[in-house]
C-alpha cells in the first residue's frame, strides 16, 4: 500500500518551490530598488483589518471580493484586505497627518480576493507598489508612469506598453446623460467591450443630443498612439473631458523627458480601474501575455474617506503575473543559486567548518555537505539543486578539488590561496 495523503490546496492560491520563489524574490527586490531610488519609503500594513474600517476605502467592486470572518475576541467582522492602497490611505490619513506632505510610500505584500473560479483566476495577489500622497500635479502622474516603465525594464521586460486612460474624460461624457441606470449600464458594457456595433444599436433608441451621441460613439475607438488625443479633442465639448485631455497632454510632454514615450499607449474608452480612481489611470501589458502586469492611477477622494482630504496617486505590480509573463527571462536570476557545496573527506569536520566560515566571509554562498556519501552522490545532489561548484576537501587537506556539476570539469586549487582570498569563481 502506498501512503498517499491528499493535500490539495484551495483553488486560486499557489505554493512556489525554490526556483520560482527565487524569481519572485528577485522581482520583489528589483522593484524595491527602483522604489527606493525614487525616494519612496517602505510601509508594512496589518494583515487584518476591521471590516467596517476597511470598507470605508472600498468601492462595491472590491467589497464583493473581500474575505471576511468573525473575530472571536470581539465578535466583530474582520477582513483580509483585497487591496493595499486603501490600507496605505488609512495609515497616511490617520497616523501620519502631522508629518509634512507629500508622502512617498512603498509596500509589497499579498492580498486576497474572491474570484470566479472557472478561469483559474488567482485569489491571492502578490503586489509591490507605491503611493504618492499629497500631490495633484501632472508631474506626479508622470512620475508614476516613468517609475512603472523603469520597473518593467529592471525586471527584464523588453516589449511592453503602459496604457493610459483618464477617468474624468469618461465621466465628463457619462455624467449628465439623462438616462436611467439600466440604460447607462448597457452603454458602459458596450463601451467597456469596445463593441461599437452594439453601442450604435443602443444609441438608436435613446433620447440623446447629437453631440452626446457623437461623443459616446468615439469612445470604443479612442485607443492607440498619441494621435488619440487629437481625435478625442475633436469629438468632445464638455469642460471636464477637455480638462482631462489637457492633463494627459501635460503628462505625455513630461514623459518625453524620461525618454519613455515609445512605451506609452492611450485608451480613453477604458472603464477599468477601481471605484476609487479619479483622474489618470494606467495598466502595464507585456507583449504576448493576456493580462495586465501592473495597474494604478489617481485617487483624489480616497484619503478623505479616512478623514484627511488630500490628492494622491500610486500603482502596484502584480508579481505573479510578472512571474508567469517573464518566466524564461527570469531564469538567469534563479539558476545557480548557491556557489559551493563543501564536502569534507576527513573524519574531523572542524577544518571544513573553518573553511566554510572563511569562504562565506569572502562573500561566497556555501552549504556544508553533512551527509556521508560517495562523491557521485554528492555531485548528483549538487547538480539537482543547482550548485555552481562542488568543493572537496581531501583527507590530507593539502589542496582542494573544485568540480562543476554541469559538465564535471575538475580544477585543483591551493588551500592557502583560498585562505588568502585568491579564489575566483
Amino acid at each position, binding site marked *: 500500500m502506498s501512503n498517499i495523503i491528499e493535500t490539495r490546496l484551495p483553488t486560486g492560491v499557489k505554493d512556489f518551490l525554490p526556483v520560482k520563489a527565487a524569481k519572485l524574490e528577485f522581482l520583489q527586490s528589483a522593484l524595491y530598488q527602483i522604489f527606493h531610488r525614487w525616494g519612496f519609503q517602505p510601509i508594512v500594513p496589518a494583515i487584518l483589518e476591521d471590516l467596517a474600517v476597511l470598507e470605508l476605502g472600498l468601492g462595491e467592486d472590491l467589497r464583493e471580493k473581500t474575505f471576511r470572518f468573525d473575530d472571536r475576541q470581539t465578535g466583530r467582522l474582520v477582513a483580509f484586505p483585497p487591496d493595499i492602497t486603501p490600507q496605505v490611505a488609512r495609515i497616511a490619513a490617520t497616523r501620519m497627518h502631522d508629518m509634512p506632505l507629500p508622502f512617498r510610500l512603498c509596500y509589497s505584500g499579498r492580498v486576497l480576493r474572491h474570484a470566479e473560479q472557472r478561469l483559474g483566476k488567482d485569489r491571492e495577489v502578490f503586489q509591490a507598489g507605491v503611493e504618492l500622497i499629497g500631490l495633484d500635479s501632472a508631474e506626479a502622474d508622470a512620475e508614476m508612469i516613468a517609475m512603472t516603465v523603469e520597473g518593467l525594464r529592471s525586471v527584464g521586460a523588453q516589449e511592453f506598453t503602459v496604457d493610459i486612460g483618464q477617468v474624468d474624460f469618461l465621466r465628463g461624457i457619462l455624467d449628465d446623460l439623462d438616462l436611467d441606470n439600466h440604460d447607462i449600464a448597457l452603454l458602459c458594457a458596450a463601451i467597456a*467591450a469596445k463593441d461599437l456595433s*452594439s453601442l450604435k444599436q443602443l444609441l438608436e433608441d435613446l433620447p440623446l443630443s447629437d453631440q452626446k451621441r457623437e461623443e459616446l460613439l468615439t469612445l470604443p475607438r479612442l*485607443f*492607440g*498612439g498619441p494621435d488619440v488625443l487629437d481625435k478625442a479633442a475633436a469629438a468632445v465639448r464638455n469642460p471636464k473631458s477637455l480638462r482631462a485631455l489637457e492633463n494627459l497632454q501635460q503628462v505625455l510632454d513630461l514623459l518625453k523627458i524620461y525618454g519613455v514615450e515609445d512605451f506609452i499607449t492611450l*485608451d480613453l474608452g477604458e472603464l477599468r480601474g477601481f471605484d476609487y480612481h479619479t483622474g489618470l489611470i494606467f495598466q502595464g501589458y*507585456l*507583449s504576448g501575455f*493576456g493580462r*495586465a502586469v501592473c495597474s494604478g492611477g489617481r485617487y483624489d477622494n480616497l484619503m478623505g474617506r479616512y478623514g484627511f482630504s488630500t490628492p494622491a496617486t500610486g500603482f502596484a505590480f502584480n508579481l505573479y503575473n510578472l512571474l508567469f509573463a517573464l518566466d524564461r527571462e527570469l531564469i538567469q536570476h534563479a539558476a545557480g543559486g548557491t556557489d559551493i557545496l563543501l564536502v569534507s573527506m576527513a573524519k574531523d569536520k572542524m577544518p571544513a567548518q573553518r573553511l566554510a566560515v572563511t569562504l562565506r566571509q569572502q562573500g561566497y554562498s556555501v552549504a556544508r555537505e553533512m551527509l556521508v556519501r560517495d562523491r557521485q552522490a554528492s555531485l548528483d545532489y549538487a547538480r539537482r539543486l543547482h550548485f555552481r561548484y562542488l568543493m572537496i576537501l581531501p583527507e590530507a587537506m593539502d589542496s582542494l578539488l573544485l568540480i562543476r556539476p554541469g559538465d564535471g570539469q575538475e580544477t585543483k586549487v591551493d588551500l592557502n590561496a583560498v585562505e588568502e582570498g585568491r579564489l575566483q569563481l
Partner: protein
Amino acid sequence: MSDYLTFALPKGRIMQDSMELFAKVGVTCPEMDNPGRKLVFENARDKLRFMAVRAQDVPTYVEYGCADLGVVGKDTLLEQGRDLYEPLDLKFGYCRMVVAEPKALSQDDDPAGWSNIRVASKYPNITERYFAAKGVQVEVIKLYGSIELAPLVGLSERIVDLVSTGGTLRENGLVEVETIVEVTSRLIVNRASLKTKHRRITKLIGDLEREVEEAPRISG
C-alpha cells in the same frame, strides 16, 4: 513570435466565412487551401497565423492571449461572459436564441404566467439570466446536443436553443414562443494584444468595419 498576429477561428462554416471576409481586406492564408488535418496555418510573409479550434474554445484561446483575435458567435460570448474586447459585429452566422415549446403546450400557454418551469439548453447561463430577469424560477437542464428531444420525452417542458431557419423545431413539433437575442459572429480581441499591437489591430478593425458596413445584411 510576438510580431505575428494570431487568429483563433471555429472550424467549419464560420471559418470559411471569416477567411472570405478577411481576404477582402488583404488578410489571407494560402496554406489553408489544403488543410488536411493541420490545426495551425501560417502566412509567414504577412506574419499571420490561424488556429482552427472548437467554437466554444475560441474565447479561451483569445482571453489567455494564445491568439490575439478570434471570431465567435455572440451566443458563445453571452454564455461564457469572458473578459474580452468585441469591437465588431461581422454580421454573418446570423441566427436567433429562442425559447421553444411543443405546439400542443403553446396553444393556451401564456409566458406571463410561467413559474417553476423546466428548461433544457446547451446555454444554461443565458437561460438562467433570461428567466431571472423576468422573475421566473427555472430549473435548467444542461444538454450537449439534440435539445429538441427534451420536450418530446418529458425531460423538460421547454427549451432554449439557437435557430436559423426554424426547420428543426418544426420537424419536431416545437414552436418558438420568445426570442431572447439575435446572434451574429463577432470579432474578439485579447486585452493586452489590443494595446501592444494596436497599429495592426486598429487597421484591421477599421478595414473590416468598412467592409462589413458596405455589405448588404444577410439574414436567415
